[in-house]
């Protein structure tokens, strides 16, 4: 009797989790209905974001979100792989443990603190040194033209890169650690160098590594405060990485409390709904990929 009550209670709490997700979708969908009815799919393809005229198109935000996240991944993925390889394959445990903890601490720094640091340290450094150098060497590319302010897409991407690196590298570490030792021994026994052996391990963990990268993408897409503080918050689509941009998350953060009128608020909630659905799908794919790798090898290890 007691058991049945206990099990039902626990199950109700667990179902509450499912309920929260369903409630999220329903609440966001209900409150964005006004905007969905008004603009339909045009919401995603229109470039106009004009609260005064009551015209709302999300394309600049979608562009800013995707572009800043891709810059972040471009920088962070090689670094994360390097860190994970160093900690799992190379460093002795008395180095790997404390250093691994320090890298994880990067993930513990709050977003708003990254933003503060970005405004007052990173942005001036980019404005005074990095962006002028990029403009002189690569100015023939459309990405590195335009006015240099230190506030824009590139700054947002770099801040995001620092923020997702500990997340990607932590998952890649788990994935590499789950690759069976016999793979390494086999490679070494065939005369592989250390790096050639590591490449075998990387190929083995490839689906899990892909999962880790997608997990980082999910995080970068939804990151709000740090990006809002350094990306410039101007809804425009420009190929230049120096130009200000705007992400979905920062649009919500900036304009939500100032939104006057139901349609404006509804359009912002619709942005939230889009962000929710995209990150939900991206995270789902990532979890499945990571699970498959760590579960498969974990099962073998336990001789199940």
């Amino acid at each position, binding site marked *: 009797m007691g058991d049945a009550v206990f099990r039902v209670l626990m*199950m109700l709490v*667990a179902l509450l989790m499912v309920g929260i997700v369903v409630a999220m979708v329903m609440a966001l969908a209900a409150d964005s209905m006004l905007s969905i009815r008004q603009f339909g799919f045009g919401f995603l393809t229109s470039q106009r974001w004009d609260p005064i005229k009551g015209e709302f198109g999300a394309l600049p935000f979608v562009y800013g979100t995707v572009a800043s996240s891709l810059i972040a991944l471009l920088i962070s993925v090689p670094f994360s792989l390097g860190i994970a390889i160093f900690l799992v394959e190379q460093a002795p445990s008395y180095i790997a443990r404390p*250093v691994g903890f320090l890298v994880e601490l990067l993930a*513990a720094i709050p977003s708003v603190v990254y933003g503060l640091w970005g405004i*007052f340290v990173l942005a001036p450094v980019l404005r005074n040194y990095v962006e002028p150098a990029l403009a002189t060497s690569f100015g023939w590319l459309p990405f590195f033209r335009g006015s240099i302010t230190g506030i824009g897409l590139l700054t947002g991407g770099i801040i995001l890169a620092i923020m997702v690196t500990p997340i990607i590298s932590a998952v890649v570490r788990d994935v590499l650690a789950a690759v069976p030792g016999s793979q390494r021994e086999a490679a*070494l026994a065939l005369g592989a160098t250390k790096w050639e052996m590591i490449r075998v391990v990387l190929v083995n963990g490839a689906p899990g590594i892909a999962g880790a990268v997608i997990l980082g993408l999910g995080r970068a897409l939804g990151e709000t405060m740090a990006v809002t*503080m350094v990306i410039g918050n101007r809804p425009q689509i420009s190929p230049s990485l120096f130009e200000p941009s705007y992400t979905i998350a920062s649009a919500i953060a900036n304009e939500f409390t100032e939104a006057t009128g139901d349609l404006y608020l509804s359009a912002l909630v619709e942005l939230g709904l889009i962000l929710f659905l995209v990150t939900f799908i991206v995270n789902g794919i990532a979890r499945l990929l990571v699970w498959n790798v760590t579960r498969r090898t974990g099962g073998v290890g336990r001789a199940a």
Partner: protein
Amino acid sequence: MMAGYVNADRTRRASSALMTTLTGLCTLLAVGALLVILFYIAWQGIGSLNFRFLVDSPRPVGEGGGIGNAIVGSLVLLLISSAFGLPLGICVGVYLSEIGRGRLGGAVRFIVDTLTGIPSIVTGVFVYAILVLPMKHFSAFAGGVALALIMIPIVARTTEEMLKLVPHSLREGALALGAPQWRVILGVVVPAAAPGIATGAMLAIARVSGETAPLLFTAFGSRFFPTSLNEPIASLTVQIYNYAISPYDEWHAQAWAATLVLMTLVLGINIIVRFLTRKKF
């Protein structure tokens, strides 16, 4: 193994040496970034930090003022979110580890994992829709609920991991003595994992104490000490944000000092947890 290395030609060995050095450099750069950020915060923050700053409430530019109300506000928000988030999260963890082993368990675990990845700003919008709009005003309560929603999946997953570390023989022993499953779980398994669950709870508290986005339009912010849970409330993070984007040097200095206080709390919890769990990992 030796023969392999001897036969390996120069380029292979050179590229191996190069790549294995590069991985070390990556790690060095990441640790360097952490240290640069931390030292910069300490250096900038220490200047404006004094007792008055910690207990005073904000004042107009040029008159000093402090973050006392924000510290109290953050603590109130953490209390509300812990009151909801910790029990619910632990229950979900118990369900995942001890009860839900079939399809439903897998589905709940998947949902909990993906909930962890939902951007916190979306959680803020959700709480705005279900609490702030019906109540027609921002409130400490709404802010606490938003933080609790972020806490639950974190606590649930760490609780599950910790419960799975409890040896099966303990459960079997208790069951063999005739105890019903609920008594085994609540009386034996959960207490055995209590230190681990507590550290998971601390990490969740550290995580939400740094959250800003979900508070922007739930708790909103305030320039006064809180008097009721039913009105807007200040928090360290929102205060830092507002000061950081302001045009005043004095407020920028205060933002750095407030950040130093926040970082002491967040990193302090993380380091304590690490110290407590150092034998397990």
